[in-house]
C-alpha cells in the first residue's frame, strides 16, 4: 500500500513536471540536443569499427585456411616456393570438388589506383589466384562480365573496389609492369575482403612481376575440424616452416590496430563529450527545479514525500535523455548505416573497402549511455528539490 502510494505520488509529480516542459522548451531542447549529439557521435564512430570488423572477420570463412611463411607479418611479405606449395597440396584435410583439390597458390601486391572521391593515391591490393581460388573461399561469385582467363593479362575487381577507385569498371585498362591489364568482370564476396581486391591469374602475374613462386596459399578444409590435422601435419614437417591460420583468425589479427584505434577514439570522445552534455542536463534540471520551486514546495506542504519529488526530477531528466538518445541513434542510423568507404589498413599496407555498420547492440548501448547521462545529470537537482526548506520555497516568486 505504501509502495503503491509512493508510485502514485511519483506519477502525479512527474505529470506536473512533464506538462511544464513546453514552458521551458529552450533549455529542455538544449539538453535533448546535447545528449542526441553525444549518442550520434559515439554510435557513428563505433559503427566505423563495427563495419571494418564485419568486412574483415565476420564475412571470412573459418573453413578457408591461410598459409604463409612463418616469419612473415602478412601476405605481402610472405614467400612460398613451388616445393613448399607441393608439400601444402599433399597435406591431409583439404577438400576436393569436381575440378580437383581446393588449393590456390596466390600472389599479393598493391597497385596505385586513384580514389574516386579525392583522386588521391591508394594502395589497392592486387591478388593472383589459381583456378580454384573462388571455390576455396566458397562465397565469391562473378556478378558482372566474366572471370579472367588463365595466362592472360585480365583482372576481375571486387564490387566495393570498383565503386571506390577510378578506372575499375568492366572494359577499363591499366598499365602495370609494362603490360596492359583489362578488367573483364566484377566479383561479389558478400561484403568480405575480396570485395576490396583486384584479382588476376597467378600465372599471368608471375610472368609480369618476374616471380617463379608464390606468396601465400589458401586451401579449403573438408570440414572445420580438419584444421588440427592440417596444422599439425604442416608444423611437424621438417621441409617447411609455415604459419597455418583460419582466414577468420588471420584477418582478426590484421584488423586489430585499426579497430582498437577507432574504438579508443569513439569511447574517449564519447566519454568527454558525455560529461559536457551532462553539464547541460544538470543546468537544465536545476533550471526546471528553480522555476517550479513554489509548485514543489506546495506539493511537499500538501504531504507529498521527499522521495517522490526526487524521483520525479530524475524521471524527467531521464525522459529528456531518452528522447535525445533515440534521436541521436536514429540520426546515426539514417546518415551512416551502409555508408561505403575505403581506408588503408596499415597492418596490410593496403586499402580495405567496407560499409559502416550501425548495429542493434550499438543503438542499444547508445540509448543506455543516454539514460545514464540523464540519471547523473538529474541527481543533484533532484536532491536540491527534495531538500528545499518549505517556508523559504513557498515565499519564492
Amino acid at each position: 500500500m505504501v509502495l503503491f502510494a509512493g508510485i502514485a505520488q511519483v506519477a502525479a509529480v512527474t505529470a506536473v513536471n512533464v506538462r511544464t516542459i513546453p514552458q521551458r522548451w529552450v533549455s529542455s531542447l538544449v539538453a535533448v540536443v546535447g545528449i542526441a549529439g553525444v549518442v550520434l557521435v559515439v554510435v557513428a564512430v563505433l559503427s566505423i569499427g563495427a563495419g571494418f570488423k564485419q568486412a574483415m572477420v565476420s564475412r571470412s570463412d573459418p573453413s578457408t585456411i591461410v598459409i604463409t611463411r612463418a616469419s612473415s607479418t602478412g601476405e605481402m611479405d610472405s614467400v612460398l616456393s613451388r616445393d613448399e606449395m607441393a608439400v601444402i597440396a599433399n597435406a591431409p584435410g583439404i577438400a576436393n570438388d569436381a575440378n580437383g583439390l581446393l588449393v590456390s597458390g596466390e600472389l599479393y601486391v598493391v597497385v596505385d589506383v586513384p580514389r574516386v572521391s579525392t583522386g588521391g593515391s591508394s594502395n589497392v591490393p592486387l591478388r593472383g589466384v589459381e583456378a580454384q581460388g573462388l571455390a576455396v573461399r566458397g562465397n565469391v561469385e562473378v556478378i558482372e562480365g566474366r572471370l579472367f582467363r588463365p595466362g592472360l593479362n585480365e583482372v576481375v575487381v571486387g564490387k566495393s573496389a570498383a565503386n571506390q577507385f577510378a578506372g575499375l569498371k568492366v572494359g577499363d585498362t591499366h598499365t602495370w609492369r609494362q603490360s596492359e591489364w583489362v578488367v573483364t568482370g566484377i566479383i561479389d564476396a558478400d561484403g568480405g575482403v575480396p570485395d576490396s581486391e583486384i584479382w588476376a591469374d597467378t600465372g599471368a602475374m608471375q610472368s609480369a612481376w618476374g616471380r617463379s613462386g608464390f606468396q601465400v596459399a589458401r586451401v579449403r578444409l573438408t570440414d572445420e575440424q580438419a584444421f588440427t590435422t592440417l596444422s599439425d601435419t604442416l608444423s611437424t614437417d621438417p621441409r617447411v616452416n609455415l604459419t597455418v591460420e583460419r582466414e577468420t583468425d588471420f584477418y582478426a589479427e590484421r584488423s586489430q590496430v585499426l579497430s582498437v584505434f577507432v574504438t579508443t577514439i569513439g569511447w574517449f570522445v564519447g566519454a568527454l563529450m558525455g560529461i559536457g552534455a551532462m553539464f547541460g542536463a544538470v543546468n537544465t534540471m536545476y533550471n526546471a527545479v528553480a522555476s517550479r520551486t513554489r509548485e514543489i514546495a506546495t506539493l511537499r506542504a500538501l504531504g507529498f514525500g521527499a522521495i517522490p519529488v526526487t524521483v520525479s526530477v530524475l524521471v524527467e531528466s531521464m525522459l529528456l535523455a531518452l528522447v535525445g538518445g533515440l534521436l541521436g541513434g536514429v540520426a546515426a542510423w539514417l546518415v551512416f548505416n551502409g555508408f561505403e568507404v575505403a581506408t588503408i589498413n596499415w597492418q596490410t599496407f593496403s586499402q580495405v573497402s567496407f560499409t559502416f555498420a550501425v548495429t542493434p547492440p550499438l543503438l542499444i548501448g547508445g540509448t543506455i549511455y543516454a539514460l545514464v547521462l540523464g540519471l547523473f545529470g538529474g541527481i543533484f537537482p533532484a536532491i536540491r528539490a527534495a531538500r528545499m526548506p518549505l517556508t523559504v520555497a513557498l515565499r519564492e516568486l
Partner: protein
Amino acid sequence: MKYLPLIWHNMFRRRLRTVVTVLSVTIAFLLFGFLTAIRSGLEGGVEVAGVDRLIMVDRVAIINPLPLSYRNRIVATKGVSAVTHATWFGGYYQDKRNFFAQFPVEPESYLEMYPEVVLPQAQRAAWLADRGGAVIGRALADRFGWKVGDRIPIITPIWSRRDGQAAWDFTIRGIFDAGKEGFDTTNMLFHYEYLNEGRAFGNGLVGWYIIQIDDPDQVATMSAALDALFANSSSETKTSSEATFLQGFADQVGDIGAIFTAIVAVVFLTLLLISGNTMAQSVRERTSDLAVMATLGFSRWRIASLVVIEAMLISLIGGGLGLGLAWLAVTVGGDPTSGYLPAFFIAPQYMVLGVGLVVLLGLFSGVLPAWQAVRLRDVDALRRTV
C-alpha cells in the same frame, strides 16, 4: 577595471552553475585540442615536409624497388642539388607485435638531406664509423628503453640473410631528436651497405629516392624531367614533392579522415551550444538586476559591456583550462592509441585557432543577452522576474 569585483560577484551569483559552465567550456576545448592532435597525426607529417625535397618512387606501387644505378643519373640532372635514398626494412624486435619502421640509408647524404634529424656530433661520428651501427629516434628509444651501446637483433620477413641467419644485429650508436615539432622519431636508421652486403637477393635495389632541388618553385618541372629519364624502362618512376608524397599517405586514409573532421565539428558545436545557452541564461535571469543598475545611472553600453566581459571571462577561463589540459595530455600523456599515429602533437596553427574560438565563444554568448539588456525598457525589466 574598477568593475571587476562587480563582474566577479555576478559570476558567482550561482556558483554551481558558473562552475558547471566553465567546466563544460573546458571540456569542449580539451576535446578540440585532442582531436586536432589526432588530425595532425592522420595527416602523417605533411606539415613538416621540406619544400625543396622531392620523393621518387616506383610508378606502379611504392612497394616495388628502384635500381641503385638511378642515383648517378639523378645527380647529373640540372637543378638537382643533392640526392639520397632509403629502403623499407619491415622488421620487428623479438615479436611481430614489436613492429617499428627501420630504414637502411646512405648515412652522410641522408643526414645532410634531413637537418630535422638532430644527432650529437660524437654519436654521428660513431655511427658513420660503424657499418653495423644504427641510430634510433627518441620516441623509439623511450618505447623499448634502449640506450646507446645496446645490441638489438631485428627480424625481417622481407630480407633474408645470405648467411642464413634469422636476425640482423645492430649496435645503437646514437639517439636522434626531432629538429622540428611533428617530425617522426619512432624509427631507426642504419647503413644501406650493411643491408646490401648481407642480403640474399635484391642487391643494388633501393626503396625510394629523396632529391633536393635548387629552386623550390620548380617542383612540377623537375618532377616531370626526372620521370622522363626513366620512362619506358622496367622501373618507371613517379616523382612528387615531399608534401604531396606524404599527403598521398594521408590520402590513403581516405574519406574516413573527412568524416572524422565532420564528427569533430558536431562534437564541438554541440558543446558550444550547451555552454553558450547556459551563459546566456544566467544573464537573462538577472534582467531585473540590470534594470536596477540602469535606473541608478549606468549607461546601457556600460551594462552591455559588463555582460560581454563576464561571458568572455567564463569563456577565457574555461577555454584556457581546456587548451592547457589538452596540451598537457598530448605532450606528457602521449598517443592514446599506442602507436597507430606516427606523430601526435597540437600544431601551432590549431592552438591559434583554438584561442580564436575561445574569444568568439565569449563574444557570441555575451552579445545576445547584452543586446537584450540594452533593448529593455526599465519599467518592463523591473517588472520581470525570471
